[in-house]
């Protein structure tokens, strides 16, 4: 049976992120969630599995708290969930993440399709799919807006800055999907209850025999705050107000 792997990331819920007065980030009381974009990847994997009459499975790399994501992922239509449990995930760069995921995928056995989101909702680094392709020596199609599968041929439409590009690839392959590829359905409560009965596999760091030490290090993280000038152009007639607005924008170098 074909195996389709959806890679997803457990990220901090953006609504829980607070900015301190010194612009440092306050993550106290923050909770995790599956990256919103990865819900699209999971749904795309479920759809692909229907086309391939295969089994959609999930794979994630995260710290021990990430274990809480497995039932959530399974309630969204995946049949099995695989979890690489390592505290090093917190500081992982693109290379480490891809290496960990690739090693786990190899451990799983044969895989027909790997689906990633174009980027995760925390960093949107867009590193995972291309690096995974390099690690597994598989073709990668990024920016996928839609796809079809016939036999072992996947045809994808890539949404680029100024055009739509149609490409095809023989499976196995990796695709990175854009958020507009689908609308992930909200799972029902019964799916949540059934999720606990599905297969969950945990890989310890030692199981994978891969170097999880990053070469890139994040030294500092500061919030970016847009300061508003709050200038109101209320004097004179409307045409004069517009004229003053244009002058001010030119002065700021905006136009």
């Amino acid at each position, binding site marked *: 049976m074909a195996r389709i792997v959806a890679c997803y990331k457990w990220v901090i819920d953006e609504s829980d992120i607070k900015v301190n007065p010194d612009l440092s980030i306050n993550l106290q009381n923050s909770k995790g*969630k599956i990256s919103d974009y990865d819900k699209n990847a999971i749904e795309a994997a479920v759809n692909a599995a229907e086309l391939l009459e295969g089994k959609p499975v999930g794979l994630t790399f995260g710290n021990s708290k990430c274990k*809480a994501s497995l*039932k*959530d992922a399974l*309630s969204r239509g995946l049949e099995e969930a695989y979890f690489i449990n390592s505290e090093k995930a917190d500081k992982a760069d693109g290379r480490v993440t891809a290496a960990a995921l690739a090693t786990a995928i190899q451990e799983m056995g044969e895989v027909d399709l790997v689906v990633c989101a174009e980027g995760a909702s925390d960093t949107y680094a867009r590193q995972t799919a291309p690096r995974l392709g390099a690690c597994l020596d598989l073709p990668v199609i990024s920016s996928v807006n839609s796809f079809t599968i016939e036999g072992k041929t996947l045809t994808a439409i890539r949404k680029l800055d100024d055009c739509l590009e149609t490409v095809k690839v023989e499976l196995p392959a990796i695709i990175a999907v854009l958020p507009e590829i689908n609308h992930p359905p*909200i*799972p*029902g*409560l*019964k799916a*949540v*209850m059934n*999720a*606990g009965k599905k297969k969950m596999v945990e890989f310890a760091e030692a199981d994978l025999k891969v170097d999880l030490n990053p070469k890139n290090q994040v030294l500092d993280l500061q919030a970016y705050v847009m300061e508003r000038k709050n200038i109101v152009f209320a004097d004179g007639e409307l045409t004069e107000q517009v004229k003053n607005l244009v002058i001010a924008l030119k002065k700021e170098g905006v136009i």
Partner: protein
Amino acid sequence: MWYMNEERELMRNIAREFVEQEVKPQVMEIERTGEFPLELFKRAGELGFLGVTIPEEYGGLGGDHTTLAIILEEIAKSMPVLTVAMGAHSLLSGGLISMLGTPEQKQKYLLPAASGEIILACASTEGVGGSNQVEYTTRAVADGEDWILNGSKVLISNIGVADAYVVLTVTGEKVDPATRSGMSVFIVDKDTPGLEVGKHEEKLGWHGSATGSVSFKNCRLPKENLVGPLHGAMQAMFVSSTDEFLSCGPVGLGIAEGAYEMALNYSLERIQGGQNMFDRFQVTRHKLVKMFTEIETLRALVYSTYANRDEGDLCLAHGRMLKVKGAEVSEYVAREAIQLFGGVGTVVDTGVERFWRDGKVLAIGGASVEALNDHIAMMIRNKMV
């Protein structure tokens, strides 16, 4: 929170997704038109929200009461009226069929009700007597193997949209004031000749709840439509109505949280004299602290009571306390939220004053806090608590 676990948290998150993606975009439209949120109600059924406590064999989740409370709280933060419709459907009507119904009745009504395929209404309150069944005049009389139902009910939720009405009616010679023996429950299908559904009443709050009167003129009901023992429905009615009172706790909590969150955000964003209201005015801070304290006090009462309900306690007194406290806290917090908004708080489109109106109706709809306080007083007097 002490009452959360992994599964409940996931289910809460699903309710949140539903609210964010589907409920919130419709809130003000439903508020304005007063139309029953049929599409959202059906979606609630698809997602399993209508069958949380209904047994699995009848299409429900077979889940616990606390999970239901968590879901009601989440929905009430944005659209309290949807929880009102859910309560009338699942707790009052579904509860009675679940407790008293035959396997055939459960198959016919409970199974599709759990998924939202059909909608149920519970017709109990009457114009004379209100919730006092001793004074009820709606009566079913045996006619061969059938029953003939006559009478009318008022302020019934889900009228017009309901596929079947679960009707509390007098069947005995008279209703015993102590035991309420003499009351029975019948199911009246929406297409039963003689069933007349009144107009949807315009109300202070709960816009969209499809509330109004239903009357029965010589409605002929087959004996299969009798639910539970003849003359002996009140015990189950007492349990299902208590479950509905219980639900007013998380609903009141959700209403209060919805209003509080809006007021807090507004106080942090509204600039006066170069500073936001929260940092500038002590009175603003203290109001919000008091609102938050009331919310957390209610939360403690809600979830400790629901924990007892899950242990099998019927929570007869505490269920009524939840409705009283839920109404009190939601009304208070929403009133203070409007006050913090100032003039714009009274503008309908701001979306905060509706929480106060919904909290006010919570203090009356289903049973007034005064009637419930009397029930609780009787239980205290008889050392039942």
